[in-house]
Structure formats: C-alpha cells, structure tokens
C-alpha cells in the first residue's frame, strides 16, 4: 500500500562465521530496528566493532514512530544522522487540544529560541532507520547481517552463545556481550524467561497514514469527542512527503480486522477531513496499547534496550525516544569496559539510571492513556469533568492530558553523580567559535568534558585534553562575551550558556560522554574533577581515595 516510500531491500550475505568453527565477537546486537541500529552506530563511534543480526531484510514497515524529540535529534546528531532528520522532518513545537468544537488547551514545548534542534520533528521511522543503516556501513565497524534470525540463546557468566537461522541454514555465534534490541516481542527476553509486566489498555486505535495535500499547520492536533468522531478521540499530525498521521480511537469492542478495510476507514476519514477531501491511504493498522517493562535491563552479559526492555503507549512519544536514550546511556559504558578503562560493575548503573527513567516514561504514558481511555465510570466522570470545565475555566486546561511529550531523563539519583542536583543533560545554547556561530552541545561529545566558565581572571588548564593515559577529560572553556579571546575557547555571546547551565565565572561542570552533568564546582581543583570522573566510571574505591586526598 505505501506509495511515498519504497522499503530498501538489504541483501543477505553469507558470513565467514557460517563456515568456520563457532566464532566469538565482543558485542552482538540482536535487532536492527531503530534502537539496535543506534546502538551499533554509537558503539562504532566509540571504536567498538559489533555484529548486528536482524531476521528481516529491510527497515521498519508501515506506520510506526513519527515524533522524534529534541534529545533524540541531539543524540542522532552525534551519530551522524541528526541533520538529515531535521532537514527531512517536519518541525513542530506546538500542540493544540480540542474538546468538541473548541480549542481548550495548547502547549509550546520549546518556548525559547537558541537551540539547534526543535522540540520535535515528525519523520517516518523508516527514514531514520535507513540513514542509520547507511551510517553503520560508513563506520566500517558494523557487521550487519540481514535475514539472520536468532533462534536460540544460552547466556553464561562469561558470555552468550546464539543459534542463528539463515537462508543457508543455521550457525552458532558466541559473544562477550549481547544487546537485545529485538523489539516488543523480544525473542531473547522470552528465551531468558523474563516477565514483561504492566498494563494493557482495553481500547483500540485506528492508525491511518494518508497522502493528501492540505494546509493544516504543522502542529499536533488532538481532539476529545470531536463532532466528526463522537465520543472518541482523534489525533492529526503532519509527516514529510505529504503524509498525514491520523489516530482514531475505536473503543474496545471494535473489530480490528473490519476496521482496517478501506470501506470502513474512508468514511471515518471523510467525516474528519471533509466529504471533498482528496486523499490516498498509505498505511492502515489497528493497535491496542500497553505500558510494561522487565524487572531489570541487565542480566549478566545481556542488556535489553528499547522495546525489548519496555513498551509504552504512543501518547507522549516515549517509545523510540526512550529507547534511543537507553543506548545513549549504555554504549559509552560498554565501550570503556571493553577498552579496559572501567570495571564491569559500571554496567550496573545502566539499570540504576534507565529503570527510573523508564518508570517515568511508563508513568506519563499510563496517565495519558488513562485520561484518553477512561477505564471505569469514575475515571470517565473525572475526564469529562476536566474537559467540560476546560472550556470556560482556564485552571482546568492544564489537567487535560492528551500526552505529555518525551523529555530527556534527569538521572537525579544516579550513583555516578558527585553531589545532588545533577544528572540532567546539558541544554543547548548558541556560542561563538573563532568568531563564527556554533552550538554548545557538539562540543560535549567525546569522553568526559570539563566545562569551565571563564572571565579574564579564571585560570584554565593549558592542555586541551587531560588524563590522556586514562579516560580523557577534555577541557572546554566558555568565555564571558567581554573577556579577552583565548585560543580554542567558545564565547558565550548571548549569555545563554551562563543562564541555562547556571554558571558564573570560575565555576565548572563535568559532563559524561552522554552529556549528562555529573559534577560541578566553584573553583577548579583537578583532584576533585578526577574523583568525579572516577565516580562516574564506577571506580568507587579510587574515587573515595581521591576524595580523601583533597580533604
């Protein structure tokens, strides 16, 4: 049915591993979906080779993720595809909520300027995946094996062995570390006997992608009880290629097969878009949504990422965006462990950090879905009360919940932070570099970054990279606009670095490779910075010793 996109077909290729004795690789990733691909590129960017196995021979098919958050774009920028996503994607910041015929609420997700990326772009998931496949190939470090279906998993203390089915028959493959990125129906998860616990929402949604030329603004429009779809909800979103995403709530009793037929779908869409609207159906599916996760995401040598670890309803766009944050969190840690620069125990922090973040996603998605699909007379009464009040009573508008959209996780209780009030991702800000306009975030990508906010008085280390024999700490000096120029420094021309990061001259912040802040200080003391880095690497002993030396 899709007319605007033709799925590429990636050829199956026989691997030498299929001929020799059982081969062993440091890292194998099961699943070349959005999250598995992001993991492969991330690890490659950090110099780690991976083998990626996927049972299919193409990228994702039909209507899936469309809303990619600012944080995802920032991470994808580091992975080399963020610009493409921004250029092709439909930028939006504003959401509007209607009840019946009237608008009751709107929200601006990025009310300030001075960020390289918008709050969201809408882009079909297959584009993001296609570009990640190309990126993965370009790194030369990703061995992507299509039509390789994992059919067996033996996890041991020192590694994992897989059985793989291919068009040429089966072969075994061993690895030191396994990333299970095989989606919501994860085979690896089932093989390990892990329970996927949570809630299924008793409702059905028609997801229709239609091709149409229309001039609705590029905003997220959500209706409760609209005149064209009485008693249910509806969502309208613009995608590239003149494709529009329409979600229509159908109720639990709807027959999913019947609802997918064009003779059912077209009248529903005409009621919404107008009798004369001209559109072509691109893709139709009917979904039931759930919010659930496994207890722990690390099981010895196996890590679960993305939908294999957790699943949320799409209200809030926290599925794919949450999954990308999983890999952003895990990959630098795994790379340091593989390079012998961090202890294996660092990998436990993946659970410590991503489980609370996942719970936040599940909580928000559950609350939105509960609001949209009331499950008993009491929840319906409160929902309708909020909606009816919202028309006349401004206070009630903030209670209208049509989805609280994905935000970057704040790792507030992270064991890797030195001090409270940390764990947030660096906000972006415009800067000048050698007199030219630039952004702050791309300067926080590699290893650890010590950001020093400086005026003329501030003493700054002479080297641009410290600790080269260990895990490097890169020095990034950001100068007050009026300060004298220093080589390599960024200039905070608009004062937004100081404002958004809460920095005054002389103060510093330490960022981890995933751009989360892990320490800050008033005056630069290198022992303190080193201790904070060691702590963020899970080197608790060394960090404590360094801390004692400072005292």
């Amino acid at each position, binding site marked *: 049915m899709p007319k605007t996109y033709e799925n590429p077909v990636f050829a199956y290729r026989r691997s030498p591993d299929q001929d020799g004795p059982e081969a062993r690789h440091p890292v194998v990733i099961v699943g070349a979906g959005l999250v598995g691909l992001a993991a492969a590129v991330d690890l490659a960017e950090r110099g780690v080779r991976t083998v990626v196995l996927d049972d299919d021979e193409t990228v994702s098919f039909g209507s899936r993720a469309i809303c990619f958050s600012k944080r995802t774009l920032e991470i994808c920028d580091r992975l080399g595809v963020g610009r493409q996503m921004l250029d092709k994607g439909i930028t939006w910041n504003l959401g509007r909520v209607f009840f019946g015929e009237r608008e009751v609420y709107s929200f601006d997700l990025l009310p300030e300027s001075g960020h390289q990326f918008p709050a969201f772009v809408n882009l079909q998931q297959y584009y993001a995946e296609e570009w990640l496949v190309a990126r993965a190939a370009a790194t030369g470090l990703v061995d992507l094996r299509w039509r390789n279906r994992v059919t067996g998993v033996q996890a041991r203390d020192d590694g994992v062995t897989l059985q793989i089915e291919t068009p040429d028959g089966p072969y075994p493959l061993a690895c030191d570390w396994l990333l299970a990125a095989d989606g919501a129906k994860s085979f690896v998860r089932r093989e390990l006997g892990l329970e996927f*616990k*949570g809630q*299924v929402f008793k409702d059905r949604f028609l997801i229709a992608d239609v091709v149409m030329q229309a001039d609705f603004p590029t905003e997220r429009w959500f209706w409760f009880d609209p005149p064209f779809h009485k008693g249910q909800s509806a969502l309208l979103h613009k995608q590239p290629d003149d494709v529009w995403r329409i979600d229509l709530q159908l109720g639990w009793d709807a027959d999913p097969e019947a609802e997918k037929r064009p003779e059912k779908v077209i009248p529903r869409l005409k009621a919404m878009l107008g009798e004369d609207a001209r559109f072509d159906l691109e893709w139709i599916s009917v979904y039931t949504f759930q919010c659930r996760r496994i207890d722990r995401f690390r099981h010895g040598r196996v890590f679960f990422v993305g939908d294999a670890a957790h699943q949320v309803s799409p209200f809030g766009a926290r599925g794919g965006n949450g999954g990308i944050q999983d890999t952003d969190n895990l990959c630098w840690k795994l790379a340091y462990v593989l390079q012998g620069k961090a202890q294996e125990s660092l990998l436990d922090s993946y659970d410590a950090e991503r489980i609370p973040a996942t719970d936040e996603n599940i909580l928000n998605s559950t609350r939105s879905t509960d609001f949209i699909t009331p499950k008993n007379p*009491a929840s*319906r009464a409160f929902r309708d*009360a909020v909606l009816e009040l919202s028309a006349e*009573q401004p206070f009630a508008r903030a209670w209208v919940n049509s989805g609280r959209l994905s935000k970057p996780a704040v790792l507030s209780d992270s064991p890797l932070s030195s001090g409270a009030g940390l764990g947030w991702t660096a906000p972006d800000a415009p800067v000048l570099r050698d007199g030219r306009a630039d952004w702050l975030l791309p300067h926080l990508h590699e290893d650890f970054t010590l950001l020093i906010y400086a005026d003329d008085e501030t003493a700054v280390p002479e080297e641009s990279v410290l600790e080269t024999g260990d895990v490097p700490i890169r020095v990034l000096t950001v100068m007050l606009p009026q300060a004298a120029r220093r080589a390599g420094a960024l200039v905070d021309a608009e004062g937004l670095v100081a404002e958004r990061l809460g920095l005054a001259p002389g103060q510093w912040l330490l960022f981890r490779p995933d751009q989360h802040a892990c320490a800050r200080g008033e005056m630069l003391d290198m022992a303190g910075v080193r201790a904070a880095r060691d702590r963020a690497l899970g080197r608790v002993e060394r960090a404590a010793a360094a801390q004692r030396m400072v005292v």
Partner: protein
Amino acid sequence: MGRLNTLGRIAAPDELYEALLEAHRDLDEAESRKLDAKLILLLANHIGDAAIVREALDIARAGATTQTSPGSGTA
C-alpha cells in the same frame, strides 16, 4: 500531622447539604458523577495545595469497602 482543617466551618450545614442534593436532582448516574467530579476539581484548585486534597482523599477513602475492579487487565 494534617493541615486539612476538619473543624466545623460551615455555618448552616443543612442548607449546603440540601444544595448538594438539589444539584443532583434529575441527573442520571453518569451526569451525577461528573457533577461531583467538577465540584472536586473546582474546590481542589481553590485549595491550591495537593497535600491537603490528598489528606481529604485519605479520610474519604478510609471507610470505603473495596472490591477488585474489572478495569484494565495486566499482562
């Protein structure tokens, strides 16, 4: 220690009670529930302090007999 004021504060409770019942006259079950819900939302917003509303919720819930609700399943 609670901050919810549970001392008697309404001068003529019978009148207000009557008004509450009166408001529900001729309403079906769903409309009635919705009316109560609106009232709660308006008053909660007026109080402006979620902790106080939660205290009231605890008291209100304390005497209730419960049964397992059909609601949404788990899986």
